[in-house]
Every structure is written in structure tokens, then in C-alpha cells.
């Protein structure tokens, strides 16, 4: 047999990465909606703020990486 499973593993990453990007945006969007409409519980407020900050930082880091990538080009 002359199978080439390596190429398939490369190809599938296009789809998986696309879902992952959507997932990352949804994650941030979900947190935004939560913070807009969710009832503010003072005990949880700190945790939520921290989670939102973390999500924002993740997206910022990803965006920075893309900018750097474009600059490098």
C-alpha cells in the first residue's frame, strides 16, 4: 500500500482551524453578551471581569500575531 496519510492531516487543518477561529470569536462574543445582559452578581463580577479580560487578551494576542505576520510580509 502506498498511502499518504500525512497530506490528509495537513488538509483537514484548514477546516479545523476555520472552526477554531469562529470558536475564538464566539467565545469573546458570548462573554460580551453575558456582561451586557447578565444579572450582575457582585460575588461573580470579579471572576467574570477576569474571564472577559483573559478572552480579550487572547484575541489581542492573536491579532498582534497577525499584524506581525503581515508586517513581516
Amino acid at each position: 500500500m502506498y498511502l499518504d496519510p500525512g497530506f490528509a492531516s495537513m488538509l483537514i487543518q484548514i477546516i479545523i482551524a476555520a472552526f477554531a477561529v469562529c470558536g475564538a470569536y464566539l467565545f469573546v462574543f458570548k462573554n460580551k453578551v453575558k456582561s451586557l445582559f447578565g444579572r450582575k452578581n457582585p460575588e461573580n463580577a470579579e471572576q467574570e471581569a477576569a474571564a472577559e479580560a483573559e478572552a480579550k487578551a487572547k484575541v489581542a494576542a492573536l491579532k498582534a500575531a497577525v499584524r506581525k505576520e503581515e508586517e513581516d510580509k
Partner: protein
Amino acid sequence: MKEFSSFRDPSGAVLVQDGVVVRQINCCYQKQYEALMEKLYGPLTAKGLLVCHKELPAKPEEENGFLMIQPEQIPYISYPYEWSFGQLKDAALTTLRIHRAALDQNMILKDASAYNIQFLKGRPVLIDTLSFDFYQEGAPWIAYGQFCRHFMAPLMLMAYRDIRLNQLLRIYIDGIPIDLADRLLGRKGGFAALQHIHWHAQSSMKHAQDGKQPGAVRTVRISKFSHMAMIDSMIRIVEKLQLKGVETEWGDYYAHTNYTEDAAQSKEQLVASFINEVRPATTWDFGANDGRYTRLALAHGGSAVAFDIDPIAVERNYHAVNSAGENLLPLLLDLTNPSPAIGFANRERRDIAGRQTPDLILMLAVIHHLAISNNLPMEKIGEWVASLAKHLIIEFVPKEDSQVKTLLATRDDIFPDYTEQGFEAAFSRHFEILQKSRVSETCRTLYLMRAKA
């Protein structure tokens, strides 16, 4: 002497010099190594993800050699088919986090082999310092397929099908084939399994014959942004994987032993006093369960391996070791069928004895399982154990013991020699009995023995 298993890597080789593992880096890897040291080595070792090393003044003997390094030594090399679910999961997360950190510095982890991860004081570290390469613009993760075979597939099979399915790794040295994982997993595992196993398997089938078509497109591009998002998503998937509702025979063994707390304590003192006679640097505990007695061997500053047949016992022990950072390695092992040597020429991955000769072996409350449940002649057990280590602390559990009575309740008693005298006679052929003491409040006896030369 060159380590046999490092024959695949053109970047360097692993050598053993006077019992110390060193790594030769070849000239072709000089740039990658320098980039690693400049940008990644510090943060990765600070987080405990990559093994520390020092550069040696001696230059490699081979012409293509650039540098020799000496990594922090791993007390006992272990393999993924010997790990519990938690160990495999933590090893997977270590691999992903290293690749993610490398991407930030425009580098990648080019290998995602589970064999490149080892445990140091209960925590997984990458031992292959030469696994890094430069990130190529738009390139997908070259090690993605390997990561799925070595980690994603066995973890999902263990979590959603059966905890014992990690044993497939013993057959498939380069990880569980994705199409096999897909068949076994069926529809379990949700969207994560759909992406990384099912679609992955379908894609592999569809493109299996691509090589035969002339001029087939062989390049795939994904942006770095997408690549990073994919790794982040994979980290979240692996973090969420859990063993659900798994109860096994031995999981809560110590709640159901026929030891009273007083008897357990006196057994502990007795074992500790025997260990003190040997003062071992390296110890193996066969049938270690949660490692209660294995820990006694650490008192002298050495390392220990706690082998057990039960995956839940190993899992519990691992979580305890991991949070305490003990120099103890819990591993899965069936004493009646221990890990063999596997791989090319049967020399890539060693059998248990080929990796270390311990100073001491503990076999507490395990002989009856071997001799009665598995019908192994005691003389043969003694012969095997004597070939592994110099000293042995062994507990003999007689037929009067309630645990043995349970074992004999459902089978014919074809073990006329299973008595204290019979045991001593069988083991005396291979061992010299140094000390012998009754465990108080029980009918069991503890022995300290030394193997005959």
C-alpha cells in the same frame, strides 16, 4: 554508546556515557538550537515544560557534530501504554502548550510523539531538545496527525469508550491509526471527536491515493492566526476530557482491605525498617496501588516506580504525586505480562528490566494473585524477581487469610505447596532470606531477601 532508538533523527543523537544520558547536536541543527536557546529555552524550562540541560565543553567525536549537551536525567523512562489517563492527558497538554509557546516566537514543535514526553517528579516534560524548528509562513502543523494518533485518539477512546483502550498504543508504536480510532469511537465524543477523529479519518481515506495522481496539489496553507486558534481550541478540548464514572476492582482498595489501621501502621513500620537495611537509591513497587508503601522507600532520597495493574489506582497515585512533586512514578503494569521490548528490531522501546536495575523491589500482598489467581509457580516468580533486583521485600499471604479464602472460594485448591514453608523453599533457591517478621494482628509474614549471585 549511541542509544538505538535515536536512529531516526538527523539533527542529533542520544548517547549514554558512563551511565549518563547526553545528547549530540549536529551541525545541521545549529541554527534551530541557537534560536531555541535565545527565545524559548528560558520560558519553557521556567514553566517546567522542557527538560533543563547544560552544554558540555567536550565536542562531539563525529565530524558532523556541533555540540554536546547533558539534560537533567530522568530516573525511569516510561511509555504511553504504561501511563494512566491523567498522565497521557498532561503529556498531551505539555505538547500543545510547547507548540503554542513556540509559535509566539516563530518556531514550531515538529514532533508530537508521546515518547518525547517523560515524567520528572510527577510532572511531564519534553525531553527532545531537538524537536524545534522554524515556523514557515502559512504552514499547517506538521505534527498534527502524529498528535492525534499519539494523544487525541487514545484519550478520547479512554474517556468515551473504555479506559483500557490505551493498550492499543502497545501494538501501534506510532499511535492509534485514525481510522481505527474512528471505528471504535463511533458517534461518541461530540464535535471535538467529529473534527479530530472522524473528519480526519475520512480525509485520510479520501486522499490516501493522492500520491498516484501526477501533479496533485501537495501544499496546504493556513494563516498563523488560524493555526494559533486551532492549537488554543485543541488545548481547550484536551483540558475538558474527563474519565466519567469509572470504577474498577481496586480503585478503593484501601477502604476494603482486611488490615485494621493498627495493623496497617505496624506493617508500615516493619516495611520501613526493612527498607532502612537496604537504603535504596532506586525502588520498584509491584502491586503498589495508591503508593502508600512505595513512599517509604523515598525516605533515603532516591526515586521509585509504583507499578500497578489497575488504571484507576495508577490515576489516583499520579494525581497525588503530581500535586506533591514527589520523585515517584506511578505506572500501569500487568506482572503476568509486563511491557515487552517493541519497535524496530525490538529495540526502540525497552522492556521494564532493560531500563533500570533497581536496588530494591517491594512485593506486598501480591504473591497470592500471582500464585493462585494466575497459577504461576512460586519458584518461577522467585527466579524472575531475582533476575531484576538485588533486594526484595515480600509479603507472604497464607491460605488462612480472608483475601486468599475469597480467591479459593471459586476455584479448586490445586496449590498444595502454597504454604509458608513452600514459599520459603521456592524463594530460597534464588534468594537468601535476611529477615523475617510476622505482621501483627494478621497471619501474614514479611521477608527481606537478597538475591543469590
